[in-house]
């Protein structure tokens, strides 16, 4: 079968296009509607329904300092975020996110989120890793939560609010190319999977909120759709991405599927053991032991595995260590860790009360993303923004997290930055330029790209390349990195990209063709992986989640954000963006805490 000539089938003209209908995208939509009722908004999602977006899987909670709390203070939260980031978050953004946090919790609560409650009927809070009182002295209780499904509560709330305001959704629809006119973003070309039609969406404002992007690792807590599409579109448009080397690995993913087994398990006394049953964290961190920070525990777990003290899972054929929960009293199993323990029963057929649980570090979160101003405006370099284009959520890097994110700060970021972007878009809409006609060069990227998939021939197989990519990224661009491995990875990525050109589709329909989608996603995974590897190679220091064995210390020479451009595969141009230190520079109370400080727990 010869592929049909691909073309734009029709044009849609909402005022605002939102690419990605997860927690961030829809909080933004709700804000626009509240500020400017009647705005026409179109939101596209890869999912069956916006409600299925990955935000719905977040467990632990959302950080916010309650002004009624007698001991907690916003300045502590800001400090924890700065320290956690290994001094590479932007302080203007930290302020922008932490200060209105409680207000945003109230927004969610008033719009129907079912937060867990205290006996007095108020919103309950729990402690979480890295969140402390008094500048690192005592555990703080500032994670607001809905049982162990906080993300679902958030997702349901912003989704329902968007429905209430009449936001229009296109589900199972892929953003495939951004459109520009005279340097201004005027929308995107989307592919509707169910009818195979390419539609040009022309809008005065485009908001990207495509979420997480770590499916290039063998074990990942991310959903099937998190293939870095958004970043690939940004790169394709000649725009930069920021800090992609900063990938967070959570120490306890369930081996195989990579499902997250919450920190709470270790909080309740769970112990990591190697194949000889030794509680190895005692050796590496005699005081904090199993409750040392995420990046440390992940590294030590990997060391055990690399030095031959891990096990190989008989079914998944993947290396792992054990999480021992057998000694934890039955009532705790029943009341506090029931859901997560249920994951072990359900997915690896193990009973945590009587058996050891197989766990391994899982790729979990990417701190980097599309660089934005503190208002969520996408940047084309360290100084200038792209008019008409905004970003928020895990996809964006403003950056709140620098090179390491604290648990519960991401959900907070979705909501606060989603709101900030909504406010900005609404304010800019009244005198925003009309997007005009479909640009003459529209489709310059996507049509050749899809034609290539539809026409390519060869003996290479998609699944092989995907699996090799995941193994490569895990082994060479994973928890540990060094110059030799990174250089090898970069070379191998080039080969994989070449091989990917020689795969042949079994069916050339454009309607709901899952294999075609996989080819497209694989290209994105390869592109984003290349930028991760190149950025990691250039950062000759260790900072937060980015760990270089050959440069194990943080180095002041690298006190900046990495900006990376890639318009041709493998040709990555690197540049820098300064880290905002405005809290420190303002010299207010406690300003000295926001200097370049040591990160010790």
């Amino acid at each position, binding site marked *: 079968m010869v592929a049909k000539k691909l073309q734009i089938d029709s044009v849609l003209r909402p005022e605002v296009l939102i690419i990605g209908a997860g927690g961030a995208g829809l909080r933004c939509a709700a804000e626009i509607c509240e500020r400017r009722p009647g705005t026409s908004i179109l939101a596209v999602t890869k999912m069956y329904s916006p409600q299925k977006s990955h935000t719905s899987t977040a467990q632990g909670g959302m950080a916010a300092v309650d002004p009624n709390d007698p001991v907690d203070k916003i300045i502590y939260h800001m400090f924890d975020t700065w320290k956690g980031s290994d001094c590479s978050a932007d302080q203007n953004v930290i302020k922008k996110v932490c200060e209105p946090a409680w207000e945003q919790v109230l927004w969610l609560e008033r719009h129907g989120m079912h937060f867990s409650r205290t*006996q007095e009927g*108020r919103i309950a809070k729990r402690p979480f890793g890295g969140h402390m009182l008094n500048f690192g002295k005592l555990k703080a209780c500032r994670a607001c939560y809905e049982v162990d499904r906080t993300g679902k509560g958030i997702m349901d709330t912003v989704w329902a609010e968007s429905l209430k305001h009449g936001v229009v959704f296109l*589900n199972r629809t892929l953003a495939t190319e951004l459109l520009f006119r005279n340097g201004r973003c005027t929308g995107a070309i989307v592919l509707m999977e*169910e009818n195979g039609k390419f539609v040009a969406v022309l809008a005065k404002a485009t908001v990207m909120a495509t979420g997480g992007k770590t499916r290039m690792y063998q074990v990942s807590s991310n959903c099937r*759709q998190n293939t870095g599409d958004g970043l690939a579109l940004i790169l394709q448009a000649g725009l930069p991405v920021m800090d992609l080397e900063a990938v967070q690995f959570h120490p306890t993913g369930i081996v195989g599927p990579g499902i997250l087994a919450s920190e709470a398990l270790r909080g309740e006394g769970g112990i990591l053991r190697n194949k000889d049953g030794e509680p190895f964290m005692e050796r590496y961190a005699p005081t904090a032991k199993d409750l040392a920070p995420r990046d440390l525990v992940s590294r030590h777990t990997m060391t055990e595995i690399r030095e031959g003290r891990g096990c190989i899972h008989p079914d998944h054929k993947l290396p792992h260590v054990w999480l021992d929960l057998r000694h934890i009293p039955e009532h705790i199993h029943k009341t506090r860790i029931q859901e997560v323990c249920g994951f072990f029963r359900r997915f690896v057929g193990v009973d945590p009360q009587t058996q050891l649980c197989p766990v391994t570090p899982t790729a979990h979160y990417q701190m980097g993303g599309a660089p934005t101003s503190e208002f969520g405006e996408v940047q084309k370099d360290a100084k200038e923004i792209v008019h008409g284009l905004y970003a928020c959520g895990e996809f964006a890097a403003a950056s709140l997290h620098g090179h390491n994110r604290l648990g519960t700060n991401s959900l907070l970021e979705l909501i606060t930055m989603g709101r900030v972007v909504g406010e900005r878009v609404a304010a800019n809409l009244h005198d925003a330029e009309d997007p005009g006609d479909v640009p003459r060069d529209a489709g310059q990227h996507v049509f050749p790209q899809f034609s290539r998939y539809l026409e390519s021939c060869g003996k290479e*197989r998609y699944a092989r390349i995907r699996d090799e990519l995941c193994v490569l990224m895990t082994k060479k661009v994973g928890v540990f990195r060094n110059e030799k491995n990174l250089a090898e990875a970069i070379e191998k990525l080039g080969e994989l990209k070449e091989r990917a050109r020689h795969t042949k589709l*079994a069916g050339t329909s454009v309607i709901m063709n899952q294999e075609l989608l996989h080819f497209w996603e694989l290209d994105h995974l390869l592109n984003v992986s290349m930028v991760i590897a190149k950025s990691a190679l250039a950062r000759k220091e260790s900072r937060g989640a980015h760990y270089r064995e050959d440069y194990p210390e943080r180095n002041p020479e690298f006190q900046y954000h990495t900006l990376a451009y890639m318009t041709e595969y493998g040709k990555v141009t690197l540049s820098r963006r300064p880290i905002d230190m405005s809290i420190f520079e303002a010299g207010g109370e406690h300003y000295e805490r926001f200097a370049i400080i040591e990160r010790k727990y």
Partner: protein
Amino acid sequence: MPQEYDLTLWISRYDPDTRRSWVQDYRLQAGRILRFVDIFRKINDEQDPTLAWSSSCEHGQCGTCGMKINGKPLLTCELLVENAVRLFKTQAFTVEPLTIAPVIRDLVINMEEAYARVHSVKPYIIQPAPPHPEGDEYRISPKVLETYVDATRCINCFCCATACVTQKNYLGPNAMLANIVRLMDPRETAKQERMDILYSEQGTPRCRTAQACTFVCPKEIDVAHFIALAKEGRCA
């Protein structure tokens, strides 16, 4: 228990380009703790890349992967091979899409139509109660929350709606549940509108209390219990 099973899958296929439907057999060996979604991936990787199916979170939290396995609606990301063999006492399975919406291709359905029923019950707060006098959050005691918190766990996987004995002119169990949540939520004041939805022709009169919904719900929500409460007027 064996480590590997020899499986036979009879999978419902549909090609939108030719409008042809058929059932295709696949035979494969699979490890005992593979999930059904892993099996579909294995089929794509090793035998037939054209088979289309849906999933997202792959750990039972999003409700994207519902299908009928040997007639039973369930989440295929939660179904391990060894459990399926035990549950159905066979190593041969029929795999069909959920029947609540038209098929787009193979096992992928057009969820929008099914979701329209959830949208129609307005899953948000229609008319919020005035805020607490102190200006902060509403006060909801854990006891009150307890009465409806289970109903808030619904992920709209539509397994219940597929199993429900009433298939025509009915909102379906999960949309009923979404309305009941807000009837029981003290922050909602539009109770009359909610009651009207509840008792409308597409509401309670259509439920025949057969409890098929409760029986299949992967979140173990006692859906029929909530609908029964509503019928007795004990929700608001």
